[in-house]
């Protein structure tokens, strides 16, 4: 039995069934990601003042990925155009480029995840602070933190909990001359060692409020970041699998039912644009704000 309305529009909806299906699916996706974005907003609004992290993300990687994903959106429409124009070589080429771009995106994302999983953060204890800590220092761990009673950290940044309103340090001039001095904090010993140009700090565990790698448990930001970017990446992998099917076995339909095949590419393209659209929001919200 032939499935009706795979090419021609249904008279009552005005669109072919595949298109109706994808729009309904995308509507449900809006609710899924909408719920997660709402979670992000409330986590951020609910965070004690000045504690929401800033500057922990690789903004250049995020920017690069934005352009890559945007470019893949163009190539998926070019793929559809090639099918419409009965250009099989063009279809294959454009779809291959789309897949390549999505692999680049996922590669950069994996690189970013890997970097985060090896980055360590230490929150210094401060009894006078309403949140229990005053400063977080981030960097790379150089010792066995499970065994030792201290943490050796090649420090690359620090952030006071009230960073938005933090007064300028009295030692600003000295810090300019010796940037390592910015880590001159109670409970932190600046050693003579350097690791990749960064000063190595010795932090006693008793002065640590809490510490961990940049994994979901590190803070609310990373919890929501991994959830949302991970879900986004899963959508990309799903799209990639469909593209791969069209590029290989599914491409037979190009020669047998081209109009239907063009519609299949179109609905997959709509899904792909939606994935791009989600990234439009993820990039500024997670990296720039």
């Amino acid at each position: 039995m032939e499935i009706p309305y795979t090419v021609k529009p249904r008279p009552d909806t005005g669109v072919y069934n595949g298109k109706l299906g994808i729009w309904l699916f995308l509507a449900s996706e809006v609710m899924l990601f909408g719920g997660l974005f709402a979670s992000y907003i409330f986590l951020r609004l609910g965070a004690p003042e000045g504690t929401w992290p800033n500057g922990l993300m690789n903004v250049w990687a995020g920017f690069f990925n934005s352009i890559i994903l945007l470019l893949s959106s163009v190539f998926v429409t070019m793929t559809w155009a090639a099918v419409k124009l009965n250009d099989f070589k063009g279809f294959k080429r454009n779809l291959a480029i789309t897949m390549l771009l999505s692999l680049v995106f996922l590669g950069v994302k994996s690189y970013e995840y890997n970097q985060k999983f090896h980055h360590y953060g230490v929150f210094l204890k401060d009894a006078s602070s309403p949140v229990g800590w005053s400063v977080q220092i981030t960097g790379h761990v150089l010792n066995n933190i499970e065994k030792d009673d201290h943490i050796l950290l090649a420090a690359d940044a620090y952030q006071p909990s009230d960073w938005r309103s933090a007064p300028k340090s009295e030692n600003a001039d000295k810090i300019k001359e010796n940037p390592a001095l910015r880590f001159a904090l109670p409970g932190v010993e600046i050693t003579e060692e350097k690791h990749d140009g960064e000063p190595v700090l010795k932090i006693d565990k008793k002065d640590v409020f809490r510490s961990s790698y940049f994994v979901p448990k590190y803070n609310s930001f990373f919890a929501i970041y991994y959830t949302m970017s991970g879900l986004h990446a899963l959508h990309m992998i799903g799209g990639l699998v469909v593209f791969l099917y069209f590029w290989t076995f599914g491409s037979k339909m190009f020669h047998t039912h081209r109009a239907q095949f063009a519609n299949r590419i179109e609905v997959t393209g709509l899904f792909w644009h939606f994935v791009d659209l989600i990234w439009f929001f993820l990039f500024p919200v997670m990296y720039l704000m």
Partner: protein
Amino acid sequence: MADNHSHTPEADLSHEEAAEVHTHVRHYWKTFWVLSLMTVVMFGCYFIPMPATANEIAVLGITALKSIIAAFFFMHLIGARKFVHQVLVFTAIFAVFLLGLSLLAFMDHTHVAFF
């Protein structure tokens, strides 16, 4: 079925239909350049020293505009059927409802009033 269109050698599309597809492709590239430029501007805002609120407004404003452009031109919402628009209007209502309810619960819980 009678077809008054003349056909291109490359396809069983009429010249008019093929020209329409080529026009679409040109529009896609234009859309790409506009969206890329907006992404660059948005990224630039990150480096410009400004109050956090101003930065958030600028960044989210550009993002909203980018989404509208992408939805209209890449996803063809500009010429979509009424039924698709109806689906999206319902989705928007539910999304606002979802956010509104959560916001009310948040305000109740934290005793913070946003409006």
